[in-house]
C-alpha cells in the first residue's frame, strides 16, 4: 500500500458548516484528502456524511467554511462546477437514467457532438475505453434498464471514472455489490489512488474500510471526531467513535429450534428461481445467501405474494398457504421487511404511528372508526421494544433516520403478530449503531420463538444472525450449511463456484 504522498493536500475542508431550518447538519468540520490517498469517511446515518457529499457534489452550499482544492478555495454552486473542479461523486442511490444507454449515462451532459448531432461512434469508443479500464464487458449501447442491479452499479462507477477526476467521492459504493464484485471494486479504488487520484470512500462496512483506506475520518452529529491512519485504529475504536459507545457481538448466538412452522417445496419463481425447498422451525434463523441476482430476493417476494409463482407449495403450521398477495400473506401469519425501504418500505407522508399500524387497522376498529387509544398503545409498546427514536408518534416518518425508519417497518411486521418473519436485507443503508440494535432485537424475537427467514447479500450479516443457511446461485439452491460448516469460505464456495457454472 503506497503511503499517502506528503505533498500538499488535494482537498481541504476548513470549518465547513451547513445549517438546515431547525438542524445543524455539519458543524465546523475540517480534514483533508491527500493525492494518492484512499481516505475513508465513516459515521452513522445523520452524522452529516451525505450533507458533506452533497456539498462536494455542488448540490448543496455550505453555510460557513470553505472547500479548497490544491490550497485554492473553490465554490461549487452546481454539480457541473464540481465536475469541472475535478471532483466526481458516486451517489449511494442510483443516478442512472433507465431509458438511456450505458454510454449515454456515462457521458451524460458530456456527449461528444459533431455540429448539433451527437457523435455516436466516438461516444461508444470512449465508453469502451473506460469500461476496458475496469475490465467490465458491457455493450455501451445497452439501455441501462436492461441491466441487473450490480451491473448498473458498475456503470455508476464507470461514469465517475470517466471524468478523469482528481478527487473521487464514493458513497456506499458496495451497498448493492456481491462479495466478488466488492473485491474487484476495492482493487479498483486502490489502483485509482496509486494513479495519483484522491479517493474519499464513504461506507458503513468497516471491513472494507480497513481493507482499503489509508486514513479514516469519523463524523458524529455533524462534528468531526477524529482522523487517523488506518494502522493506528481498531474496528472497535472506530465504532465507538461513530456511536459514542462500545459495541460487541459479531457471531451468531446459540439458537434452539423448536417445532416445525413453515415448509416450502419446489418453489419456482418465473425467470428468477426454481427448485427451492426448505423447512423453517420456530426459534431459528434460516439464511438465504448468495450473490446479487442469485434469485433469493425474488424467493422472498414470492413467499410474500409479490412475485408470481409458477410452481411449489408452501405450508404454514400444517396448513397449505394460498398467497395471492401481501394481504393474504399477512393474514396467514407472515411478516415481511422489504429490501428497499425507500421504494416499498416507508409511507413517507404518514406519521410514525400510522406507518406501524397500517397493516392491522381492521383489528382495531370500533364500528367504522379506528380505535386511536388502542393504536397509540401499539406504537408506544414498540417504541420501547425496538427503541425507535422519534419526538412524537404523529411526526412524519420521512423525518426519521434510516435506522429508525427500518425499525418502524420491523415494528409494522411484528404488529401483525406474525409467526414467520421474512427479512430481506434488513439493515441495508443502516448505520452500525442501529444495525447492532436490530441484530439484538432479532435475537430476542428468535429466543421468544419467532421463526425468521433472512435474505441478505451481506455475508457478515448472515453469519451473525443465521444458524442455518441455504446458498443460492443462478436461481437455484446450491446447498445448505449449518453449524461449523456455516462460514465465509464455505458460503463463497457455493455462491461463486457453482454459480459460475450456472451463469456460463
Amino acid at each position, binding site marked *: 500500500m503506497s503511503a499517502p504522498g506528503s505533498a500538499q493536500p488535494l482537498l481541504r475542508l476548513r470549518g465547513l458548516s451547513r445549517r438546515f431550518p431547525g438542524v445543524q447538519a455539519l458543524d465546523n468540520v475540517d480534514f483533508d484528502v491527500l493525492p494518492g490517498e484512499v481516505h475513508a469517511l465513516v459515521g452513522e446515518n445523520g452524522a452529516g456524511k451525505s450533507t458533506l457529499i452533497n456539498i462536494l*457534489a455542488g*448540490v448543496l452550499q455550505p453555510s460557513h467554511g470553505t472547500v479548497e482544492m490544491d490550497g485554492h478555495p473553490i465554490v461549487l454552486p*452546481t*454539480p*457541473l462546477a464540481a*465536475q469541472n473542479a475535478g471532483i466526481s461523486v458516486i*451517489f449511494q442511490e*442510483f*443516478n*442512472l*437514467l*433507465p*431509458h*438511456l*444507454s450505458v454510454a*449515454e449515462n456515462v457521458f*451524460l*451532459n458530456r*456527449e461528444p*457532438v459533431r455540429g*448539433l*448531432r*451527437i457523435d*455516436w461512434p466516438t461516444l461508444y469508443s470512449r465508453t469502451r475505453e473506460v469500461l476496458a479500464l475496469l475490465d467490465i464487458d*458491457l*455493450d455501451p*449501447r*445497452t*439501455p441501462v434498464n*436492461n441491466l*441487473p442491479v450490480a451491473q448498473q452499479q458498475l456503470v455508476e462507477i464507470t*461514469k465517475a471514472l470517466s471524468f478523469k477526476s482528481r478527487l473521487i467521492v464514493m458513497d456506499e459504493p458496495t451497498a448493492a455489490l456481491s462479495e466478488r464484485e466488492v473485491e474487484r471494486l476495492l482493487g479498483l479504488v486502490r489502483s485509482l489512488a496509486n494513479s495519483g487520484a484522491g479517493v474519499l470512500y464513504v461506507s458503513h462496512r468497516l471491513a472494507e474500510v480497513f481493507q482499503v483506506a489509508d486514513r479514516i475520518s469519523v463524523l458524529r452529529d455533524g462534528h468531526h471526531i477524529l482522523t487517523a491512519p488506518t494502522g493506528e485504529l481498531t474496528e472497535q475504536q472506530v465504532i465507538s467513535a461513530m456511536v459514542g459507545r462500545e459495541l460487541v457481538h459479531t457471531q451468531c448466538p446459540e439458537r434452539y429450534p423448536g417445532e416445525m412452522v413453515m415448509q416450502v417445496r419446489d418453489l419456482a419463481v418465473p425467470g428468477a428461481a426454481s427448485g427451492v425447498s426448505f423447512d423453517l422451525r420456530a426459534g431459528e434463523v434460516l439464511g438465504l445467501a448468495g450473490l446479487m441476482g442469485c434469485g433469493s430476493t425474488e424467493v422472498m*417476494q414470492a413467499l410474500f*405474494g*409479490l*412475485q*408470481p409463482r409458477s410452481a411449489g407449495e408452501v405450508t404454514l403450521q400444517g396448513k397449505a398457504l394460498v398467497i395471492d*398477495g*401481501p394481504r393474504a400473506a399477512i393474514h396467514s401469519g407472515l411478516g415481511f421487511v422489504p429490501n428497499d425501504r425507500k421504494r*416499498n418500505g416507508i409511507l413517507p407522508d404518514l406519521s410514525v404511528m400510522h406507518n406501524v399500524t397500517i397493516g392491522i387497522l381492521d383489528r382495531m376498529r370500533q364500528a367504522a372508526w379506528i380505535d386511536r387509544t388502542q393504536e397509540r398503545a401499539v406504537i408506544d409498546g414498540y417504541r420501547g421494544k425496538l427503541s425507535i427514536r422519534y419526538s412524537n408518534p404523529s411526526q412524519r416518518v420521512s423525518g426519521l433516520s434510516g435506522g429508525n425508519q427500518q425499525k418502524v417497518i420491523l415494528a409494522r411486521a411484528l404488529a401483525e403478530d406474525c409467526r414467520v418473519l421474512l427479512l430481506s436485507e434488513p439493515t441495508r443503508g443502516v448505520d452500525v449503531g442501529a444495525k447492532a440494535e436490530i441484530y439484538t432485537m432479532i435475537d430476542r424475537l428468535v429466543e421468544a420463538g419467532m421463526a425468521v427467514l433472512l435474505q441478505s447479500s451481506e455475508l457478515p450479516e448472515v453469519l451473525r444472525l443465521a444458524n442455518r443457511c441455504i446458498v443460492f446461485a443462478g436461481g437455484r439452491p446450491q446447498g445448505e450449511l449449518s453449524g461449523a460448516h456455516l462460514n465465509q469460505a464455505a458460503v463463497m464456495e457455493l455462491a461463486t463456484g457453482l454459480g459460475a457454472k450456472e*451463469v456460463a
Partner: protein
Amino acid sequence: MTFGTTESKRLSMSRVLRSAQSYTVGLAVLAVGLVLTLLTNRFLRIDNVLNVLTNASVVAIVGLGMTLAIASGNFDLSVGSTAAFAGCVSMSLVPALGVPLAIVAGLVAGALVGLVNGLIMTELRVPAFITTLGMMSVVRGLALIYTGGRDIYLYGQTEYKVLSGGHLLGIPMPVLLALALAALLSSVLAQTRFGRHILAVGSNLPSARRSGVRTSQVLWGIFAIVGAAAALSGMIISAQVLTANGRLATGLELNAIAVVVVGGTALTGGKASLSGTLLGAVLVAMINNGLNLLNVPIFYQDLTVGLLLLVALALQVERGWNPLTQLRRTQ
C-alpha cells in the same frame, strides 16, 4: 447474461420512430380505413384522404410538441389557448409586417407562452399540470383582450392561405408541415444532446439534475417547442378560415393529449413515439371524418373517441400478474 448486438439499433432514429406501439396503431389505422371504405365509397377518394390527413395534421402538430412534454414527464393544457393567442397575434400583424414576418411573430408568441410555462414550473416550482391549467385560462383571456373579442380577418389577403391551402406535389401544406416537424423532432430526440436530455429528464429528473444536466433549461426548451407547435396549428386553423379570434381551438389540449396517448407514448415519461402520435392523429381524424361522411350526429364522435382511448390503452397494458410492475403502470 449476454448483451447481443440486437440492442445496437435501439438508439438510432428508428428507436424513436418505430416503437412497437406505432405498429399496432398503424394496424388500427388500416383496419378502420378498411371498414370505412366498405361503409362508404366516398372515403377512399383522394380528395377525402387528403382532407383527413389535413385534419389529422392540425392536431398532430400540437401532438408532436405534446409528445416531447409527455416524454419529459409533463403535460401542457395551455396549447388550445396558445394556438388562439398566436393565431390572433400573427393575423393582426399581417397588414403591418406582411405574411412571412407575421407567421414568425406568431411562432415567437407561442414560444414565449411556452417559455413562461417553463419558467413558472422551474422558478416558482409549480407542477406542470397546474401551471398550464392556470395559463390555459390566462392566455385565453389575453387572446380575447388582445382582439377585444372580435374577429380579425383577411379576405382577399390570400398569401396567408399558404399555411393551409398551399400544395407541394398535391400534398397539402399542413400535412407537409406535420411531416417536417415530425422528422425534425425525431432527429432532435435521437441525435442531439437536447433531445437525449429531454428523455433524461423524463426518465429520472433528480438523477439528471445531479449529473449536471441543465434540467431547467431543458424544460424551458421543451415547453417553448410545445408553444411554438401550438402556435403553428393555431395559425393553420386561422389560415383555413382566414379569420382569427379568441375562441379559436378550444378543447385542443385534450384532443392533442389523446392522440399522443393513442399513439403509444407512455405517460410515465422517458420514451417518445412521434410516429405513433402521427398515426394516432390520423386514426382519430379518420373516425371523425367517417362519421361525418355517414352523416352521424356529432356526439357519436365523442363516444367513439372515448372508446378508442380506452381500447388503445387496454391493448398496451401487458398481461400477467405481477403486483409490483402493475403498480408503476396504474399509479
